[in-house]
């Protein structure tokens, strides 16, 4: 609801008393401080308000004038002839002590709607002085930013930032003083209203014509022509009869121009009826009386008629009814507040009604048709649906957005790109048989996606998932990290979710093989290396089994250090070259760069050596890989015995000589699947193909289709 404290008009004076109480108390409590500050020479407000200060605290103001009343000391600030707001000093208004005994003096400006326009700090004994332009500017930015609710992000200037160390100042006390001072100055001189839930706007008023009110929806209108009248009568089955009030002119002539609306907002009720009837509704009736505004703006018909004057008719205003939900309201003469000289009325709703102005309602306008026998038949001439437009409803201050929402809004484009890419990847993995059947297509799409992962996900969007994220997620329950800490990186959040889901469905390979930028960098380099026929070296099966454990060791090391020696964990996390190679584009200290380059160089000769033997993130995913539900990679009985084609085609040697794919080492690159579907290279398939060809040449022969072959 709305709490109004119009101090000198009416209403509860509690707010005023409160303000005065606070003031009196403040002044009493600060008496010594006042003496001190007076000693230190704080003159009257206007003398402290030099043009320099004024332009800083209230730009666009042409003139200031002390306000001569008993309220908190303030100067009215005018832009030309309009009052823009007030300028005040926290020293005068609050005598606020910070940490220090010397009350600081902040001069600030406040607009009529309570926005702080600027603040300048004038200290007497403390280090901040107005002639220190740079730091005054900083403080101004700071006060501005806080007044906006939340300090915003971004660089203040294009100049290189400067840093100064020294006494820290109590920004908090200063900000509070500026805000509280502004509130006190305003509260004394303006109505203050606090809206805590959507509330009908009873505050704002400006003169508006009927046409403007219809245009903004404040009133609903119906222009009914003679043709409309005929239509309404025909609809009611009275098409043969004549209306009680005869029409004039042709079908296009106006019969009635009728408007209606919710009367309580001054823009509607006062503009519709004039000051006196409106004032009667608001001030001459019991508290919270509601009214419906109705008016006839033209035509031969009107909404009143004459019978409402008749006692015999119970003074019923028979041409109007208002319906909301199940309730229909009718009105009698005593319910009408009429406007002299206009056919415009406020129809007062009964005080015990359940009428809710926030909900839509309907007004029905009736007319009578004359029967040949002289009796009348009532019919609906027009039904007007009405809903109070949002412009007439005051909304409470929205809760400020949590800070993490900002990055989501700011990176909508990036989020869209990533989601598209993930959809493409999902499509490719779901249709991997189709993809693998075409060697060229696989080559293009696979390398294209890797290039995208490296260049866009990695270098452009800096969305390299890393062991640091995993560690943060693991630590979350212990460290009590704020949710915003995680949510502020939209792409990382999306990638983490996708990786988690794909890990459960298919295994670690989806992230490691497709979405890891550093992995993509290694694989692309390895492709070049293979194309250049550089020698490749891979450990034997036994040695490889041992080396595979390296990544679990590095993972274990990091996890242990995180809990026993967090500082060392930070160093251990540098096992990952991701920061160096991806997020920092190799612009880092030399040891890091050398390490990353060394790993890449090794990768030229042993593909993805880092991923397979060292990567802690890969280790974490590979451990969880044991959980995966689906296995889409196809095998034949001949795989491993006697055939070893796929085994050799696997760039990371994830296929054992037995033919079994070690899923926790598989990167889902699908190279083996390309071989699997290649009827030139896959021996069992080639054999079938040859048999089929021979069959074509020499007639049918018994064919054994190897198990696992899709029809």
């Amino acid at each position, binding site marked *: 609801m709305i709490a109004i404290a119009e101090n000198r008009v009416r209403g509860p004076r509690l707010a005023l008393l409160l303000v005065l109480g606070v003031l009196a108390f403040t002044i009493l409590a600060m008496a010594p401080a006042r003496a001190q500050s007076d000693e230190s020479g704080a003159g009257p407000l206007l003398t402290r308000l030099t043009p320099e200060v004024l332009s800083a605290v209230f730009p666009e103001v042409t003139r200031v004038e002390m306000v001569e009343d008993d309220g908190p000391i303030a100067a009215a600030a005018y832009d030309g002839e309009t009052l823009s707001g007030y300028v005040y000093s926290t020293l005068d208004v609050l005598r606020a002590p910070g940490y220090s005994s010397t009350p600081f003096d902040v001069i600030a400006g406040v607009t009529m709607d309570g926005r702080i326009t600027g603040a300048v700090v004038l200290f007497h004994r403390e280090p*901040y002085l107005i002639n220190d332009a740079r730091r005054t500017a900083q403080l101004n930015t700071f006060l501005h930013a806080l007044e906006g609710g939340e300090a915003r992000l*971004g660089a203040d200037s294009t100049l290189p930032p400067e*840093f100064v160390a020294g006494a820290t100042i*109590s920004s908090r006390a200063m900000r509070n003083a500026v805000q509280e001072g502004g509130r006190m100055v305003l509260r004394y001189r303006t109505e203050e209203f606090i809206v805590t839930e959507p509330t009908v706007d009873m505050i704002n008023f400006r003169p508006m014509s009927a046409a403007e009110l219809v245009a903004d929806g404040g009133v609903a209108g119906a222009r009914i022509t003679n043709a409309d009248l005929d239509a309404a009568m025909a609809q009611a089955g009275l098409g043969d009869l004549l209306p009680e009030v005869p029409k004039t002119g042709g079908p296009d002539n106006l019969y009635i121009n009728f408007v209606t609306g919710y009367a309580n907002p001054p823009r509607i009720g006062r503009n519709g009826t004039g000051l006196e009837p409106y004032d009667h509704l608001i001030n001459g009736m019991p508290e919270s009386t509601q009214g419906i505004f109705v008016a006839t703006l033209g035509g031969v018909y009107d909404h009143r008629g004459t019978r409402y004057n008749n006692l015999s008719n119970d003074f019923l205003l028979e041409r109007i009814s208002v319906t909301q939900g199940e309730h229909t309201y009718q009105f009698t003469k005593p319910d009408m507040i009429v406007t002299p000289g206009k056919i415009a009325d406020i129809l007062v709703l009964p005080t015990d009604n359940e009428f809710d102005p926030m909900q839509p309602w309907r007004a029905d306008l009736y007319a009578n048709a004359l029967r040949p026998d002289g009796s009348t038949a009532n019919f609906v001439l027009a039904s007007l649906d009405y809903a109070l437009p949002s412009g007439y409803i005051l909304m409470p201050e929205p809760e400020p957005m949590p800070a993490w929402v*900002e990055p989501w809004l700011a990176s909508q484009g990036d989020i869209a790109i990533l989601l598209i890419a993930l959809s493409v990847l999902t499509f490719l993995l779901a249709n991997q048989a189709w993809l693998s059947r075409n060697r060229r297509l696989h080559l293009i799409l696979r390398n294209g996606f890797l290039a995208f992962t490296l260049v866009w996900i990695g270098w452009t969007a800096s969305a390299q998932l890393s062991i640091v994220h995993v560690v943060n997620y693991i630590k979350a329950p212990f460290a009590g990290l704020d949710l*915003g800490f995680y949510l502020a990186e939209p792409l990382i959040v999306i990638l983490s979710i996708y990786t988690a889901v794909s890990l459960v469905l298919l295994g670690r390979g989806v992230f490691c093989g497709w979405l890891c930028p550093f992995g993509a960098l290694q694989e692309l380099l390895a492709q070049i290396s293979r194309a250049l026929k*550089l020698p490749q070296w891979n450990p034997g099966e036994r040695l490889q089994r041992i080396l595979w454990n390296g990544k679990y060791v590095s993972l274990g090391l990091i996890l242990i250090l995180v809990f026993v020696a967090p500082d060392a964990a930070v160093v251990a996390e540098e096992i990952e070259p991701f920061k160096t190679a991806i997020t920092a584009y190799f612009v880092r200290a030399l040891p890091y760069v050398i390490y990353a380059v060394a790993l890449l*160089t090794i990768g030229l*000769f042993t593909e993805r050596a880092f991923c397979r033997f060292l990567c802690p993130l890969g280790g974490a995913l590979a451990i969880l890989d044991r959980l995966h539900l689906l296995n889409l990679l196809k095998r034949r009985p001949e795989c491993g015995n006697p055939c070893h084609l796929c085994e050799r085609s696997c760039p990371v040697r994830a296929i054992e000589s037995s033919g079994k794919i070690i899923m926790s080492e598989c990167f889902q690159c699908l190279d083996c699947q390309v071989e699997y579907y290649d009827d030139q290279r896959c021996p069992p398939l080639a054999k079938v193909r040859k048999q089929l060809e021979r069959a074509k040449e020499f007639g049918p022969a018994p064919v054994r289709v190897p198990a696992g072959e899709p029809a």
Partner: protein
Amino acid sequence: MNLTRRRALQIMAASVAVPLGVLALRSARGLPQPVQWRGEALGAMSAMTLWSHDKARAERAIVRMRAEIDRLEDIFSLYRATSELSRLNADGRVDAPSRDLVHVLDQSQRIAEASGGKFDPTIQPLWTLHSARSAPDLRNLEAALSLVDYTAISAHIQTVRFEQAGMSASLNGIAQGYITDRVTELLGNEGFENAVIELGETRALGQAPDGTPFRVGLLNPHEPNQVMEHVSLAGASLSVSGGYGQSLPDGTGHHIFDPLTGKSANELAQVAVVAPRAMLADALSTAIYVAGERASAAILSTVAGASAILIRPDGSRLQV
């Protein structure tokens, strides 16, 4: 495998190609640009300035750091009545405290020990006494002094408590130092290389993007609107203690007390300490400011890599 000459050349060429490519990539990027945030942390004006090639990434990192600062304020802020520290001061104990609180109390006890009690986290009763508007009488002073005893804090992961009723802790500088350290380290962990974090204390992450140390102006204690000299800061923290920051309502001095006498320390006008971590720098500068010039070398020697600039009341300067 038989290494032919051709093979060997191929391998060497490939091995050189990678670093060359990396060099090309590095030089393709220009200098990183600064992104700055100004706001409030623990009631003091604060700022974070990060250099990054990717402005959006730096901004997102700042949002995340603000979440972390907010969490730490819930632990250390005396402005929040429900913070762990406020609860500790009100009730004398906190059960199931955060690791952060235990860590900071533990560290502050160590430094108190090393400084011979010249730095003491339980100084709050003296501050409360002096923030009254009249000069304290001797009896009150003694009562307050008896409540200043860092050894009477027991900080364990299950419970943090004071062993004496009426004690209270002000972790002001040291908690700001801790927050500064946390944020700096988190940013470093995220791969930021150049940043200046000013959350009550100043800490530089790495150096300025041009490869030189950051230059932080040091205010002249006698003319606090003037920068006296610049301190070079790279991968280190700077903490300044001086009496001019907050003078006391009772007019007897300023906010840095000698925990042993209960009076404002006045032997030095300003102490600036550079140390690896902001929490240490703060404790050291406070301790030296209280203990004075003669004890400074001994106090500094407790932290490897710490140095100090002392300004005497006559304006002369001493580098330790």
